[in-house]
């Protein structure tokens, strides 16, 4: 996901399935982390009263999570590591929910231990991993790269479990492992650090055959430093750590499988089973052993036996297996907690008393369940915010009962959302309106709610949808296909709401509908491929309304569909790695291959279509990727790691005419159930970009006036930043990345620069023109100006901290004409292209530091208020949002305010995101150089499209990027503006935000804080409410005063300016240079407005309207 993409999740009534496979509690006992079979991680908040509430879901793994572990010293960095079935590993920050590091290794881990030895190790420590491979792997905790491994000299085998023993007595750390064959092995840890770092082979120190299989846990008793607990599935044993002699064996009774255990105190241990029971034993010395002297003269071994003290159990054994853990913290206010997670997604906690005792009569005491919670509980509790996107409409339809959406499809070109329901109806709505109705207060008051369409034709729940025109423009725009459980596929005309044809496939439920790629045609038409749940595949010809082929021989689920255009073959890849080749014309099975041959066949055809619903979770992330790909590829210059198995053909088609849209809906399906939800994606950058040119192109001059004010302010920000850039550049000396850029920008004399810029400018323009000629006419981007504004309003509604300040809420509704949220929204946060987190309903109560009053308020964290205050303190008193004309309910003013706010948010977003981008994007050194180059000479829109992909190598550079990007937005005004009108405050604001970035303030927090501050400022300026603002230093208000003094004059001037600007010639080579020189030298002093204005006007000559060329330039390069 792109960083400027903001996601809002619209959950339904049903929680997404979360079959827990791994569970842990963080060291601060604040967060429970669970990993699921579906591949997501869930963060649960654990309050001081041991109450659980789900906070957010982390998406990133495409396979079942196998283990979780701490990845750092938790008090320093709240990082955990997760490993998945397919070898993916991720390091997550559990406070922000962001993925810090990721890697995919060809190893499947089943257990991970974090090890750090501060005085012998550099770096962040090691992750000791074991799993489905021989011996123990050592992985660097920071980079996730394999460092080395611990090798065994005898009986190398898979390792089942391990533990690190830190013995204070001998000052040596050891690694104890048990292999699948039941072999106990010991490695020296601390003394072999050097050897490992020098990549020498380190072999085990000791090994002993334990005689049991399926070892689950090995634990060392830190209290006695003597006992070793080893839990096998059928028994548990206690060994003496000194010589590994067996002290005790306890065999499981009534068919229970042990799953783990822990030493909870000296001679006291806790054993848990796979079905969720646990037992606390006291180890007692048997008196018998005292009298029993070993005959062979060895040292006396006391024999011990266990005494059952307490037990725990769950109410009913709902679903096996349970994954359990125990957390032992001795310092207050921490608890001794036993926790378990079930496949059903339920978490249960038991508070284990410090001194567990049995009943008076000696029988074991039952420890009651302290808390239990599921994701669904969260959804039920926060019912108001957990509605599906369609609820409002389906509610309208039949009054009672809401339809369960079983499939959905979003058509970006029409902004329509098609939802297939469980009862067989298909609802088609305007997506933005549906989202508004769902999110905002007074849903029924959404006046302009357009008529939604209800298509009735299916008798069973609709399982898949396809809008062919979205994949190939050649097909009829009104066609839509839907498939249901009864294996009936209907071709609809969505304009007339008619059924054009019904195909009865007589197979299983239609799990997915695909379309052949553009180059594959049969009788001049692309064909539709239906994959059914009985593993059969049917091909449909839409024009001919006929079924071409029914392929029914597949024994395993269909994973992949490929098309062979030359020979008219349909190649079907199944889950068991076999391949079926069907001849389409005759409908005969041409070949069936397995193994190596099958692999070769699948690899040789490049056009592949992944059957989505077979791998819903994987594809879900992939969908994200593809969205990302679609929207970002226009900007893409370097090679992007392409997800190998996406619906590439469709992707390409979409690319050809894809205009990044400010608003998108992403339907998400989940595995093993039909619970789905939707994600709204707001492209902040695109929004700003779409909104900005509008005032300029508007005929209405007053509107352009406001627009230009916005531009000017934003631009001045930009200019100021250049200065910082320059300054820091000289300060930090030549950086390798700048080696090229520097001489150009600094060593060249001014005249040279002019020439250079002229040339450069010219060339670039020519290029652009060429490109634009080649490209198709730009997609209509102005179709829905109102839609864009609506999107922007919805976006602002989502971000505003409603409920913090009632007056402010009121003013926002009144002046910005936006609606209040129904409840806190579930925001998404992307860490990189395929790792992101989504807040769950009820996340707001998780902010433990949040004051009680603020629960139910859309405030992302307590920090936001402080940040906002700080921001407002730096905000200049008057230079707020453009304002002026008295009728402040004016819609123009409102829209300009929105534009201003959005551009602000975009800047903040960019600034805060920078380091992340640095981390993610490598390479593009060349363009990195170009940044300053271009900035100095062109300094405008031309490279708008490239800035994103460019790698910034340091903060200075990134600032450069940012400037470029901002400047590109305001490019229209750039030429005209070489005066500096920079409030000092802007600089400090930037500093402040950069500072936040360093303090690891989350993007969402920063955005909300800035929004809050700006809105408060704005509202204050409206003079309606006394905002509790800090006294603002008057020193910097020169500009503002002047403005106040000469407001009228300035307006008129601006007006003129605007007119001129609108009629600027295409080429104005002088002005950018002017500006450049100014920004280099003069800008820093506060130059007066007036003289510069004159210069500006002189430098420009009337000509063609500028904005056209601007758009012409931006659009082609984005489409390219």
């Amino acid at each position: 996901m792109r960083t400027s993409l903001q996601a809002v999740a619209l959950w339904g009534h049903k929680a997404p399935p979360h079959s827990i496979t791994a569970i842990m509690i963080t060291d601060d006992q604040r967060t429970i982390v669970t990993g699921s079979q579906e591949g997501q991680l869930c963060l649960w908040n654990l309050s001081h009263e041991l109450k659980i509430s789900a906070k957010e879901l982390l998406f990133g793994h495409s396979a079942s999570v196998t283990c979780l572990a701490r990845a750092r010293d938790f008090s320093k960095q709240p990082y955990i590591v997760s490993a998945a079935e397919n070898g993916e590993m991720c390091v997550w920050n559990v406070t922000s929910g962001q993925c810090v590091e990721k890697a995919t290794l060809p190893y499947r881990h089943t257990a991970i231990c974090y090890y750090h030895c501060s005085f012998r190790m550099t770096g962040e420590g090691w992750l000791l991993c074991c799993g489905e491979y021989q011996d123990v792997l050592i992985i660097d905790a920071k980079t996730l790269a394999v460092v080395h491994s611990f090798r065994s000299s005898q009986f190398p085998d898979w390792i089942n479990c391990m533990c690190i023993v830190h013995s204070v007595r001998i000052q040596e750390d050891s690694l104890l492992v048990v292999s699948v064959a039941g072999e106990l092995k010991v490695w020296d840890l601390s003394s072999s650090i050097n050897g490992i770092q020098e990549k020498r082979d380190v072999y085990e120190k000791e090994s002993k055959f334990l005689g049991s299989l399926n070892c689950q846990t090995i634990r060392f008793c830190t209290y006695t430093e003597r006992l070793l607990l080893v839990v096998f599935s059928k028994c548990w044993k206690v060994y003496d750590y000194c010589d590994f002699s067996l002290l005790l064996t306890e065999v499981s009774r009534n068919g229970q499988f042990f799953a783990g255990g822990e030493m909870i105190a000296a001679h006291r241990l806790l054993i848990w089973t796979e079905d969720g029971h646990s037992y606390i034993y006291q180890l007692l010395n048997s008196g018998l052993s005292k009298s029993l002297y070993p005959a062979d003269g060895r040292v006396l071994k006391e024999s011990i036996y266990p005494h059952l003290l307490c037990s725990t159990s769950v109410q009913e054994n709902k679903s096996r297996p349970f994954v359990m853990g125990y957390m032992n913290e001795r310092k207050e206010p921490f608890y001794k907690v036993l926790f378990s997670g079930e496949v059903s997604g339920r978490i249960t906690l038991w508070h284990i008393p410090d001194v567990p005792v049995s009943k008076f009569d000696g029988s074991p005491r039952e420890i009651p369940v302290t808390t239990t919670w599921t994701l669904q509980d969260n959804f039920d509790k926060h019912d108001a915010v957990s509605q599906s996107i369609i609820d409002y409409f389906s509610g309208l339809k039949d009054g009672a009962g809401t339809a369960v959406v079983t499939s959905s499809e979003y058509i970006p070109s029409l902004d329509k959302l098609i939802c297939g329901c469980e009862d067989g109806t298909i609802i088609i709505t305007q997506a933005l309106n549906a989202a508004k109705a769902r999110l905002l207060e007074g849903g029924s008051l959404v006046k302009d709610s357009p008529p939604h369409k209800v298509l009735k034709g299916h008798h069973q729940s609709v399982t898949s949808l396809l809008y062919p025109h979205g994949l190939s423009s050649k097909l009829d725009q009104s066609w839509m296909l839907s498939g249901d459980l009864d294996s009936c596929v209907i071709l609809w005309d969505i304009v007339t709401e008619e059924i054009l044809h019904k195909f009865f496939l007589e197979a299983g439920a239609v799990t997915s509908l695909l379309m052949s790629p553009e180059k594959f045609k049969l009788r001049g038409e692309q064909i539709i491929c239906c994959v059914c749940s009985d593993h059969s595949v049917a091909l449909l010809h839409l024009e001919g309304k006929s079924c071409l082929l029914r392929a029914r021989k597949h024994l395993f689920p269909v994973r992949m569909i490929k098309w062979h255009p030359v020979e008219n073959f349909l190649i079907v890849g199944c889950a068991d790695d076999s391949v079926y080749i069907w001849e389409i014309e005759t409908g005969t099975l041409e070949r069936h291959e397995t193994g190596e041959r099958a692999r070769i066949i699948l690899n040789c055809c490049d056009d592949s279509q992944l059957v989505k619903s077979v791998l819903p979770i994987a594809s879900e992330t992939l969908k994200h990727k593809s969205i990302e790909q679609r929207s970002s590829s226009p900007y893409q210059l370097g090679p992007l790691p392409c997800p190998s198995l996406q619906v590439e053909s469709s992707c390409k088609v979409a690319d050809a005419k894809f205009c990044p849209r400010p608003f998108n809906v992403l339907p998400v399906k989940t595995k093993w159930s039909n619970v789905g939800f939707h994600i709204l994606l707001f492209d902040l950058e695109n929004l700003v970009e779409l909104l900005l040119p509008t005032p300029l192109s508007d005929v209405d001059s007053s509107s352009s006036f406001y627009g230009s004010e916005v531009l000017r302010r934003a631009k001045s920000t930009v200019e100021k930043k250049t200065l910082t850039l320059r300054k820091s550049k000289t300060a930090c000396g030549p950086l390798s990345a700048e080696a090229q850029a520097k001489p150009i920008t600094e060593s060249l004399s001014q005249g040279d620069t002019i020439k250079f810029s002229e040339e450069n400018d010219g060339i670039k323009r020519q290029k652009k023109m060429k490109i634009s000629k080649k490209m198709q006419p730009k997609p209509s981007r102005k179709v829905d100006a109102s839609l864009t504004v609506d999107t922007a309003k919805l976006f602002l509604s989502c971000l505003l901290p409603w409920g913090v300040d009632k007056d402010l809420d009121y003013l926002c509704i009144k002046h910005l004409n936006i609606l209040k949220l129904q409840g806190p929204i579930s925001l998404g946060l992307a860490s990189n292209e395929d790792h992101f987190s989504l807040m769950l309903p009820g996340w707001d109560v998780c902010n433990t530091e949040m004051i009680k009053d603020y629960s139910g308020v859309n405030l992302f964290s307590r920090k936001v208020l402080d940040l906002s205050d700080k921001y407002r303190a730096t905000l200049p008193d008057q230079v707020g949002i453009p304002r002026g004309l008295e009728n402040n309910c004016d819609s123009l003013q409102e829209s300009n305010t929105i534009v201003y706010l959005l551009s602000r948010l975009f800047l903040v977003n960019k600034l805060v995101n920078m380091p992340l981008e640095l981390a993610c994007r490598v390479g593009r050194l060349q363009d990195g150089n170009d940044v300053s180059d271009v900035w100095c000479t062109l300094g405008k829109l031309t490279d708008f499209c490239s800035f994103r992909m460019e790698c910034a190598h340091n903060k200075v550079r990134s600032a450069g990027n940012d400037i470029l990007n901002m400047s590109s937005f305001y490019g229209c005004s750039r030429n005209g503006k070489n005066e500096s009108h920079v409030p000092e405050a802007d600089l400090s604001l930037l500093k402040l935000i950069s500072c936040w970035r360093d303090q690891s303030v989350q993007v969402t927090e920063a955005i909300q804080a800035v929004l809050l501050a700006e809105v408060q400022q704005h509202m204050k300026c409206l003079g309606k409410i006394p905002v509790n603002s800090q006294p603002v230093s008057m020193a910097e208000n020169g500009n503002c005063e002047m403005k106040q003094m000469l407001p009228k004059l300035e307006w008129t001037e601006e007006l003129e300016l605007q007119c001129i600007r609108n009629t600027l010639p295409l080429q104005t080579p002088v002005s950018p240079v002017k500006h450049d020189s100014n920004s280099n030298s003069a800008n820093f002093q506060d130059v007066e407005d007036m003289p510069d204005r004159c210069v500006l006007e002189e430098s420009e000559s009337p000509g063609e309207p500028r904005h056209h060329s601007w758009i012409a330039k931006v659009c082609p390069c984005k489409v390219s």
Partner: protein
Amino acid sequence: MATVMAATAAERAVLEEEFRWLLHDEVHAVLKQLQDILKEASLRFTLPGSGTEGPAKQENFILGSCGTDQVKGVLTLQGDALSQADVNLKMPRNNQLLHFAFREDKQWKLQQIQDARNHVSQAIYLLTSRDESYQFKTGAEVLKLMDAVMLQLTRARNRLTTPATLTLPEIAASGLTRMFAPALPSDLLVNVYINLNKLCLTVYQLHALQPNSTKNFRPAGGAVLHSPGAMFEWGSQRLEVSHVHKVECVIPWLNDALVYFTVSLQLCQQLKDKISVFSSYWSYRPF
């Protein structure tokens, strides 16, 4: 729609009954069958702890190729380890016979067999943890179990069917070359792997490339079987493969195991399909 729902009310009752039977009886029957098959498979791997404790029995395999008889090998397999190996190589140039064998004290673990064996035992463990006393409540539960079992079985099968693709330096560095009693001559490389049901031995004859050779040096990538002409750098030397000899021998019990894997995978899928049929009737609940 309402009519459809009503009409099927009676039908639904029957379906529910049938589904209950499926969950309570049929699933366990299939699981039992699966267990039996996999136990049989694991016996082939002579799993430790499967009743026959003690050293696994030794089997001798004579490896040859149908074409030339330049390389002959007798490999002794003990469970998942090669305990003895005798390789005879007739040098193509001078017809000189080379003989080398494993050192007495050493064994070479065949990682592929060990992994396959471990995957099977994981699958068995998954199945045994849901014995007859366990009641499945939902179909999804069965599907998840089947997915987990199938994952292990697929991996077990893939381990045998896809040998590791190694680069020549990796083969040179592997411990196998150091296993032989008269140490291998420096111009020979040996690799042993499993491919499907066959135990394969490859011997690469090498010759050093002259440093001023006109041939442009391009190191070969990873491959199961390198072809003559593949080049690589080892130490400070640049070497080229001059001859490749591959001999193989079918291991009967591996064949059996592969068949068992395929059969049990199909059983799993059939059970999943049965469950899925019902799931479509109760799409509103996590069946």
